[in-house]
């Protein structure tokens, strides 16, 4: 029987559809022409210029500071939230669950506006601090979501078994609970990290002068007509994000049964 070629054709078309724009971007970043359009020969000058661009360097630093801090905060808080939601059953639990998942479904623009209003009303000066707080709020939701999924298949008699074998609360936490939840926690953290790197809308609202992150910086450069630089920046940025997503996929897959 002749094998159908449909799966092959369909897969190819979908990949082309998804990755053609990225491929164009990739090629353009090495194009020695200021506005693209025609191919003027291979160059690395956009990358070189990028590494000398003050705004880009500050934005990169900001992005990393925000992403690392917000990830740490959201991982700790998100894991605790997931544990609390899972362990302490109450009539309000469903409500709490929905409230924690809120930021996952509320449009970014509403999150941004509401956070801005909050900061302004409390007269908190906008800056890196406010960006970190904002990123932690949605990061926390994602971490809680992933960890809660892990907890749902967690066998609680393992905790009883550990105590039965002489382990106190801390030993149980370190030797049983965390090792088993770790893949979920790590995957959640990576998700929070990439989302923090990528976020534009919320950051746009709560970032003050000098605290722009890369996406906000890219938007600014767009307005000032530096498309070639943006191409190079986007390629680097995308590669980093892609790497992290791959790593998180790998961690999530790790199961014991």
């Amino acid at each position, binding site marked *: 029987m002749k094998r159908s070629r449909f799966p092959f054709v369909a897969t190819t078309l979908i990949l082309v559809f998804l990755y053609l724009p990225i491929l164009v971007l990739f090629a353009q970043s090495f194009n020695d022409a200021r506005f693209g359009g025609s191919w003027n020969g291979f160059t690395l000058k956009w990358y070189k210029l990028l590494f000398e661009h003050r705004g880009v360097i500050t934005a990169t630093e900001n992005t990393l500071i925000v992403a690392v801090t917000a990830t740490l905060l959201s991982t700790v808080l998100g894991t605790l939230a997931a544990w609390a939601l899972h362990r302490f059953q109450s009539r309000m639990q469903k409500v709490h669950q929905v409230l924690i998942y809120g930021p996952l479904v509320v449009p970014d623009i509403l999150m941004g506006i509401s956070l801005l209003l909050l900061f302004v009303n409390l007269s908190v000066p906008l800056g890196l601090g406010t960006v970190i707080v904002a990123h932690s709020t949605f990061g926390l939701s994602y971490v809680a979501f992933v960890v809660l999924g892990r907890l749902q298949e967690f*066998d609680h*008699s*393992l905790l*009883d*078994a*550990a*105590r*039965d*074998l*002489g*382990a*106190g609360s801390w*030993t149980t936490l370190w*030797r*049983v609970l965390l*090792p*088993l939840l770790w893949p979920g926690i790590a995957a959640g953290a990576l998700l929070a990290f990439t989302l923090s790197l990528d976020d534009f809308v919320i950051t746009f609202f709560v970032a003050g002068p000098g605290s722009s992150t890369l996406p906000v910086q890219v938007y600014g450069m767009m307005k000032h007509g530096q498309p070639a630089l943006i191409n190079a920046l986007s390629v680097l940025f995308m590669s980093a994000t892609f790497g992290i997503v791959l790593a998180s996929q790998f961690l999530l897959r790790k199961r*014991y*049964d």
Partner: protein
Amino acid sequence: MPAFFEFRDIGHQFGKTPVVEKVNLSLNRGEVFSLVGPSGCGKTTLLRIAAGFIQPTRGAVLLDGEDITALPPDKRKINTVFQNYALFPHLSVFENIAFGLRVAKKSKTDVTRAVGEMLELIDLAEHARKKPAQLSGGQKQRVAIARALVNQPDLLLLDEPLAALDLKLRQRMLLELDRIHEEVGTTFLYVTHDQTEAMSLSDRIGVMHQGKLLQVGTPAEIYESPESSFVAAFIGDTNFVVGKVRRIVDENRFVLEAECLGEIVVWRDKPVAVGDQVTVSIRPEKFSLQKTRPATNGETSNSVPCKIEEVIYLGPQTRYWVRSADQLISVIQQHANYLLDETPLAWGDEAWLTWRANDGFMLNAYREADEALLTLPDD
């Protein structure tokens, strides 16, 4: 000898519902004690009270003369084999068994030696590096036992450890458990709802029902002299004969005016008076079933005519349901050479049912509800 382990007047309730009531039980050092009872009767609750996971609402738990009621599970010299094994999935077989020793900060050499010995005991030395997910059900079960025993507990609790295994494996594991107990000599408190499991493994059995411990005794005591209709019907199968005491024959026997069977002689091992309402339990295998009227004397044995209503051939024995007067009676007959018997009893045949006075056992407590536990012919 003072009890090694003791439940003293234990009571427990979840919210308002009492789950365990007035349980008093003493275990001897080194014995295998089984708690049996139907689902939901409070066995697991009692075991978790012993392990320290549940604080009983009343009563005390004593180990070696010491009140341990307030001690948390990690401070008790008691270990548990959980029903679903509860092996740590991220640790190898070796590390699972070593868990308790590592927590107790034993030296490396001690851990290696003790775990090695346990692996020998459960015969899994070549699987030491495997993860639990790579083991069969029976192997997991053995690891769970080793993981508990390696800590040399004073008392080992086992909550239906064989429930998840199939019948053949269950029988093998029973022998295995017996061997392990012989080698380590630890006191076992074993919970099961399977009475044959309990009978074959235990030195003594406690029968539980609705949170109460109804009767404690050796397997033979429980089987041969059940005190209540529940114990009689739950452990093995039986027939209940209800009636009034008609006359006392001598110190050993009395005549019962049974509601259906008429006058029968009954062994008198408890004081009775004429006119008392009593219930007698007679096990199916105590009867003998014959085609012709046997020559019995009516003083020490009974004989009633009956009609065969159902015959089930079971291999080593045949099970009959026969009707005499208005009572359906379950009868089991061993057969030595079934095929050589000219004509085995068949459905509809008339026959004679015979039993000795001391085959029946007077119950202290009878509840009609327990009739529901008896095996009935399905039609």
